[in-house]
């Protein structure tokens, strides 16, 4: 389904391109080109580091910046306290990095930098990236579960009070619901980001095509579409925050399962 000439292709924004003439870099036959995806990951990391370092001066009377950083750390700390309990502190570094990385990535991808010719790339709209994040969370659950409980970890698949005659069914259902967790985590973030960006591009093609078709079409189709684009952009900022929160929240719930079983 290639886009025809002169149309806006809503999928082009997700194309991965090698940057800085690195398309032939290889290790053992595998291409390791420095792509736009990798570049935006690096920008995200650098901005996140600057944001955190600026707020970690530990002044006795916190300034605005320190308050901002402390409200983020306090937010994640409260969430872990509520969902895991006092053991939750152990996972604070991981969950906090995960939350801030996804949040910054989602928000950076929404920046209107196209106005100055730089096209932001939302790397959270790729299943490979979110998949790796989800597999990391899932392996932490498995490692913690087997480390703390050994083979008793399998009792996760038999909820309390399961009647004996249902033993052939309930563990199977629980096992399936356990195994789809990494997929649902990764899929949710990737599709939510991708759907929003595709929607914005489709609306922008309405605006461009209707204005090109004449002033009347521009007034009756272009202007409402543009208004809708502004509203959807606001919604996307909300979605960027909610998806980062949901990823961190579900990861903490899964870790709680591993810590405490049922």
């Amino acid at each position: 389904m290639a886009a025809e000439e002169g149309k806006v292709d809503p999928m082009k924004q997700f194309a991965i391109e090698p940057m800085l003439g690195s398309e032939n870099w290889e290790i053992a036959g595998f291409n390791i080109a420095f792509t736009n995806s990798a570049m935006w990951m690096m920008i995200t990391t650098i901005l996140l580091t600057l944001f955190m370092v600026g707020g970690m001066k530990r002044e006795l009377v916190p300034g605005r910046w320190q308050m901002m950083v402390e409200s983020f750390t306090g937010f994640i700390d409260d969430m872990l306290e509520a969902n895991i309990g006092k053991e939750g502190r152990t996972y604070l570094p991981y969950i906090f990095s995960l939350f801030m990385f996804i949040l910054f990535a989602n928000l950076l991808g929404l920046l209107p930098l196209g106005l100055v010719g730089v096209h932001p790339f939302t790397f959270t709209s790729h299943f490979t990236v979110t998949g790796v994040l989800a597999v990391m969370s899932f392996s932490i659950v498995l490692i913690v579960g087997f480390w703390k409980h050994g083979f008793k970890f399998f009792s996760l698949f038999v909820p309390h009070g399961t009647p004996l005659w249902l033993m052939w069914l309930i563990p199977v259902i629980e096992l399936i619901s356990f195994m789809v967790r990494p997929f649902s985590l990764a899929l949710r973030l990737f599709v939510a980001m991708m759907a929003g960006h595709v929607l914005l591009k489709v609306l922008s093609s309405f605006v461009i095509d209707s204005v090109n078709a004449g002033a009347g079409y521009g007034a009756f189709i272009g202007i409402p579409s543009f208004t809708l684009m502004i509203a959807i952009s606001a919604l996307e900022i909300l979605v960027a925050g909610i998806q980062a929160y949901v990823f961190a929240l579900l990861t903490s719930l899964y870790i709680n399962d591993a810590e405490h079983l049922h």
Partner: protein
Amino acid sequence: MEAEAAKLVGAGLAAIGAGLAATGVGNVFGSFLEGALRNPGAADGQQGRLFIGFAAAELLGLLAFVVAMILIFVA
């Protein structure tokens, strides 16, 4: 019907799933608000559960979107 046309019709039908998920997400937030207005004191403690319900309802709508994308670009 041609295979290409059937794919596009299927992708359009998948949009029904997205609409139904919208009902589900609305129901989650609506019910939460209904309960929260009856007992505002307990509302803040239930926000985690609110977002778990939201995430579960939303995921099924996103799956409909994935089905549409697979039909258009992959199948």
